[in-house]
């Protein structure tokens, strides 16, 4: 047994986290910053943070993840990190020449109280920031929230540093896609394009973390939202923020700064959330939904109706990030499945409120914010499930308990696909349907008696 010490009996824990369902803020800020064109994320802390975040993102994407660090040693921790950050800014512009350095803090620089805006002002004053270049920042204390919070903070930082209102409204919609994959961001842009809507999507990691192999390393790949586009976000007719936890803060900041009205929607995972996304987009941009999108929707409905009996009543356990879990659980309910255990490590009451809404017809459902995967495993041991969905760490439970397992969320360290094939939109929902059916039906093929082995299913 891989997790041989996980016991059925649930003892109360108030201080010890075992097998976390979250990680810390800075990695989210780093991921978000990679979605700005010609941007180098910078970790203001000791080297390990940057090394760990780059490693995790690299393992997840199998792609280069470029980022730098202030390389704190004990001296910097005692005297403050200003000298390190100033030197880093100098070296980065000399050697790597980005348009933007996106600084995020760490628990170390937060605890010693480094004042980043003051340091950046000094850098500007000393002439360390070349003309036309930018250094932006956000605070990402690791002891607050989770990686999702860090992502949200960096996206908000983009608004605070760049968005401007010129007084002239532009016929474009901002879409804040939330913490989704490059494939999802590409799909969101495609859907808007199908509807004939101009968009500013930020951050946008498509063509950054799914770059082609050409024989040359593009240090700054061609993707990412441009500074120009970010500035223009203040003139857009509206903002659609996908996912409360990852995107709401930036949308609110943009409204406060530039008076751009916004709608916060669930991540467009599955049928109903995609319906709401398309509908909001249509109303905001005042366009008619084209036939091509109706057809995509129709194909999804068709596939679900063809295979509906396989989903019915299946008990599912899920863990991951709140925005994903809320939308995913709703879709599972749509499929007549039963999401019975749902755990996120990210703290936030909003999660439990949303889950109560989504799971109101599943009375046996248990869900928890600020929980961990160890607890989820204990729930499963007490009453098993038919399917497990979560990041790669779920494979240890799946093997021990012999449960079909679908990898979804962050990080996925042992399979590819997430960066290439979307989960958002109707096409993404179809991919989810295919994955769920594949897992359930492979299990049936494996476990059924020989006489019940079906050719046609």
């Amino acid at each position, binding site marked *: 047994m891989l997790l041989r010490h996980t016991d059925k009996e649930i003892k109360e824990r108030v*201080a010890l986290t075992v097998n976390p369902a979250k990680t810390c803020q800075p990695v989210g800020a780093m991921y978000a910053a990679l979605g700005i064109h010609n941007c180098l994320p910078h970790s203001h802390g000791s080297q390990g943070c940057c090394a760990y975040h780059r490693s995790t993102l690299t393992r997840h994407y199998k792609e280069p993840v470029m980022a730098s660090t202030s390389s704190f*040693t004990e001296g910097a921790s005692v005297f403050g990190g200003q000298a390190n950050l100033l030197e880093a800014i100098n070296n980065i512009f000399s050697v790597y020449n980005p348009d933007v350095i996106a600084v995020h803090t760490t628990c170390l620089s937060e605890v010693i109280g480094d004042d980043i805006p003051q340091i950046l002002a000094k850098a500007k004053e000393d002439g360390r920031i070349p003309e036309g270049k930018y250094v932006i920042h956000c605070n990402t204390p690791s002891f607050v929230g989770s990686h999702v919070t860090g992502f949200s903070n960096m996206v908000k930082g983009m608004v605070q540093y760049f968005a401007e209102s010129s007084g002239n409204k532009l016929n474009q919609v901002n879409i804040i896609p939330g913490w989704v994959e490059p494939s999802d961001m590409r799909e969101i842009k495609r859907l808007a394009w199908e509807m004939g809507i101009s968009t500013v999507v930020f951050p946008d990691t498509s063509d950054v973390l799914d770059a082609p192999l050409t024989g040359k390393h593009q240090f700054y790949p061609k993707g990412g939202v441009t500074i120009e586009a970010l500035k223009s976000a203040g003139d857009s007719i509206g903002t659609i923020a996908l996912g409360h936890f990852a995107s709401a803060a930036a949308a609110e900041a943009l409204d406060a700064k530039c008076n751009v009205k916004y709608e916060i929607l669930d991540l467009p995972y599955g049928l109903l959330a995609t319906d709401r996304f398309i509908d909001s987009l249509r109303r905001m941009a005042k366009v008619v939904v084209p036939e091509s999108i109706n057809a995509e929707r129709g194909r999804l409905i068709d596939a679900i109706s063809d295979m509906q009996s396989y989903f019915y009543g299946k008990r599912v356990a899920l863990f991951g990030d709140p925005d994903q879990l809320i939308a995913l659980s709703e879709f599972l309910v749509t499929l007549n499945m039963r999401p019975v255990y749902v755990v996120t490590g990210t703290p936030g009451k909003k999660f439990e409120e949303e889950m109560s809404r989504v799971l109101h017809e599943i009375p046996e459902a248990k869900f928890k914010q600020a929980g961990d995967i160890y607890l989820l495993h204990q729930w499963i041991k007490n009453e098993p499930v038919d399917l497990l969905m979560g990041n790669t760490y779920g494979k240890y439970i799946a093997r021990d308990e012999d449960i079909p397992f679908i990898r979804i969320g962050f990080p996925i360290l042992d399979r590819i696909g997430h960066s290439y094939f979307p989960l958002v939109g109707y096409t993404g929902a179809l991919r989810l349907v295919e994955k769920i059916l594949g897992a359930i039906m492979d299990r049936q093929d494996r476990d059924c008696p020989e006489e019940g082995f079906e050719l046609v299913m």
Partner: protein
Amino acid sequence: MSENLAQDFAVTREKLLKVYPTKAARKRAKHMVLNDPDPETMPEIEANVRTIPGIITQRGCTYAGCKGVVVGPIRDIVNITHGPIGCGFYSWLTRRNQTKPIDDNDYNLMNYCFSTDMQEDDIVFGGEKKLRQAVREAYEIFKPKAIGIFSTCPVGLIGDDVHAVAREMKEELGINVFGFSCEGYKGVSQSAGHHIANNQMFKHVIGLDDTVRDSKYKINLLGEYNIGGDAFEIERILEKCGIDLIATFSGNSSYDYFANAHTADLNCIMCHRSINYVADMMEIKYGIPWIKVNFIGAEATAKSLRKIAQYFGDPELKERVEKVIAEEMPEVEKHRADARTRCEGKTVMLFVGGSRAHHYQDLFAELGMRTIAAGYEFAHRDDYEGRRVLPTIKIDADSRNIEELTVEPDPERYRYRKTEAEVAELKAQGFEFRDYEGMMAQMAKGTLVIDDISHYEMEKLIAYHKPDIFCAGIKEKYVIQKMGVPCKQLHSYDYSGPYAGFKGAINFYRDIDRLVNSKIWGYIQAPWEKNPELIATYVK
């Protein structure tokens, strides 16, 4: 090494330095040398000093070296990371230290991650209370033999005393509880964390169990972390030779092995950088000599086995070792000869770790592949230039931060394992105690050695010199491959292995062969990019 390449590297070195601002260039210049293997004329290289902020380094932190590398692989300790969630999360199962519990009832805590997940209140009001409670809960639920507490950056800054908490909890719970002051900022790289781990394991665990096993040739293997099953293969070979492995620090290991390690008669060091401290301390306290071995490469494995046999001096052991080598080598030779037909003459660059960039040169040499440039991520000067330079290494403020234990011979248990006469005789035979000659002594004249290579330097080095394979870690892997050059990860082995010992060598030949000769490198250009001439279109 050809004269030309040496000249090219001299030019490259100048070009690499040009891009940096003056201050950074001055510092980086000391980390790049053209090699001369002759100890008399070997250049001095700067190592184990602060990384320049912003240059994009491969390096990690002290916590990673302590918890991630040295103590993490011990399967029956509950390792609690005291800090915000990230550090524990990132070091959770990501280093491939395989472990095999003795049976179904044995402990295996390797697949778990334990953290105090410090929140803002803990930072403001102190985290000791939460830590104490977390240790209690860990004991209550998992009933381990021992609990280790690992400090992350904020812990030192807010003044939590993890050692006091450990002492209290040891008293309260009646099991061994010990702390590590391995805050990420403590040193200039992972290396400081190795030292801290060595110190604490020496202070709190080694020597707790005096049971002496009834066997003839008792050794410890130090600095072998069982990546991809390396330790399993070494265990197999040692067992076949009749050598009794008391403890491995720390691949496939148990707390109990550490407790009993001082009963061995010889310490064999694999990774000199991460573990030499404890070898020195065990020699002083218990009288156990240490030697440097290397089980990476079939030839190196044979050499190391012979060295161990020579130490014990028993003809029976020598004979058995020769028999094992004779049995194992034909299969190795067969695979080597085959892979060599496709790999011979290819060039290699290795920039990784604190010993791997050296050890793997042996394996590549067995395939007829030439190392043209190499360097470590976190090693010290002695790992480059050999231990002979130890007296000349300046101790800077960052190194002074790390505790140096004062060790004395144990009044009861000190017993030098060899008499003076035996030592003299072995030395006369050319046997080296406590010696490591370093990487540069083994590399050809004119090859390029770069310490703590930056991303920029790496990318330019590849662009200018197009090696056939580049060895590094996960952060570098896909950059290198984007440039059309295959990369072998030498931290994780690209999820393959083992590469140690005889069977490991065969795996390595196979993996390198299929990596450098993979068809995909030939398909990077589309046909229309190869022949871009325009074709006239017919216009009506």
